[in-house]
């Protein structure tokens, strides 16, 4: 029998190793798997590479994970924000490596990883500073039908931590509004995907026409309570 339901966050996160690449979903207040990030802090894995759109806000969630000093490198599109002081300090002190990626290239590099694509040519970033490798050498480029492209490689995760709305024991997932954001694409890009859900439904209860992430991309689901706050990504009307 397939049963991907975990009894607890701690159980779902067990076995994440030092040096892992961790894909973390979320954009703004929506879709951040805060309970899983807190669980990862508790779990204690070190020397992590984290992939997220941002680099943490204020002092909770991803910012709290950064503050533990266990993140070696972050791959993101928009680290600098009014309340990204934890990242800012680590970055200025040279204690964290940053790989800045245009947001669409970030999404597509994750998609490529999930789809088994070895690399892809994208117009985004051509002729800019972000078409350079970390060592300052130019990335490979090509002109195709008169248009210029940069070669970008996939981002594979060892584990993806995402927030969904509802799921079943096969791991099929539904999302809520713009909290979907990076969830479905990160789920495909990691060897192991752990999703929080607010509801666990009986197998067959989700209309198969509406399943957004099929269970093949999901390893574990954990039920969490709704938090009626902005940070929880949900506010009761």
């Amino acid at each position: 029998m397939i049963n991907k339901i975990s009894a607890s966050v701690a159980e779902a996160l067990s076995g994440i190793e030092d040096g892992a690449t961790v894909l973390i979903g979320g954009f703004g207040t929506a879709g951040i798997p805060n309970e899983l990030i807190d669980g990862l802090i508790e779990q204690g894995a070190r020397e992590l590479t984290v992939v997220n759109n941002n680099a943490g806000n204020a002092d909770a969630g991803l910012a709290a994970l950064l503050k533990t000093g266990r993140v070696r490198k972050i791959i993101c599109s928009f680290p600098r924000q009014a309340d990204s002081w934890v990242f800012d300090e680590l970055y200025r002190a040279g204690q964290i490596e940053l790989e800045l990626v245009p947001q669409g290239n970030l999404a597509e590099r994750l998609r490529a990883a999930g789809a088994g694509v070895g690399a892809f040519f994208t117009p985004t970033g051509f002729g800019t500073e972000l078409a350079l490798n970390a060592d300052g050498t130019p990335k490979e480029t090509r002109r195709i039908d008169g248009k210029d492209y940069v070669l970008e490689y996939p981002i594979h995760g060892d584990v993806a931590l995402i927030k969904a709305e509802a799921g079943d024991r096969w791991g099929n997932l539904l999302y809520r509004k713009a909290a979907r954001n990076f969830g479905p694409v990160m789920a495909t890009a990691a060897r192991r995907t752990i999703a929080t859900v607010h509801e666990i439904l009986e197998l067959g209860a989700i209309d198969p026409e509406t399943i957004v992430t099929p269970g093949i991309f999901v390893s574990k689901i954990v039920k969490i309570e709704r938090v009626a706050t902005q940070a929880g990504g949900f506010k009761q009307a």
Partner: protein
Amino acid sequence: MSHYTKRSKQELAQRVAQDIFDGAYVNLGIGQPTLVANYLPAGIEVVLHSENGILGMGAAPATGSEDYDLINAGKQPVTLLPGGSFFHHADSFAMMRGGHLDISVLGAFQVSATGDLANWSTGEAGAIPAVGGAMDLAVGAKQTWVMMDLLTKKGESKVVSACSYPLTGIACVKRIYSDLATLECTPDGLRLIDKVEGLEHAELERLVGLPVAI
């Protein structure tokens, strides 16, 4: 000496909105471009796209009915119109990169006469860089429009022969909507679309510091 009045931020938003057509799929960038939504002509249907996975984005919700799972790219609560849809990030950026969006409206630090755009970084030493969706928005839509003041606070033209700030995209801007004039960027340089009343052509060229073809 020309006697003219600059377009206010609202008038500029209205000027941009006037060129948005019925049935257009449009992404309005963070900041000033967001204002354009308030001036879309009556009687037309425009579908607003938000990079975080929304088509058919509506106005801000009433106080008290905010839903923090329903936010725009600037992370402010929004609403969804009937017919609207949600999708993941890779699909959202495929809509841009794949040329499905009709119009992308962005702010800018500088635009070159041939349409190079600089709007993500001032290149200041020690500053923490952040790019977000700027580069994808610049190169993906069928038409990229820039909305900005023509001059910096110091009076220097933001329309230049070559950008001195780090580039966001090359030859990607089609039109510049500014407080003094609307200009088209072409491979041969700038072309005038319109200018505020009373601004003489010679004075506009003096301010821009570049030839503006009529």
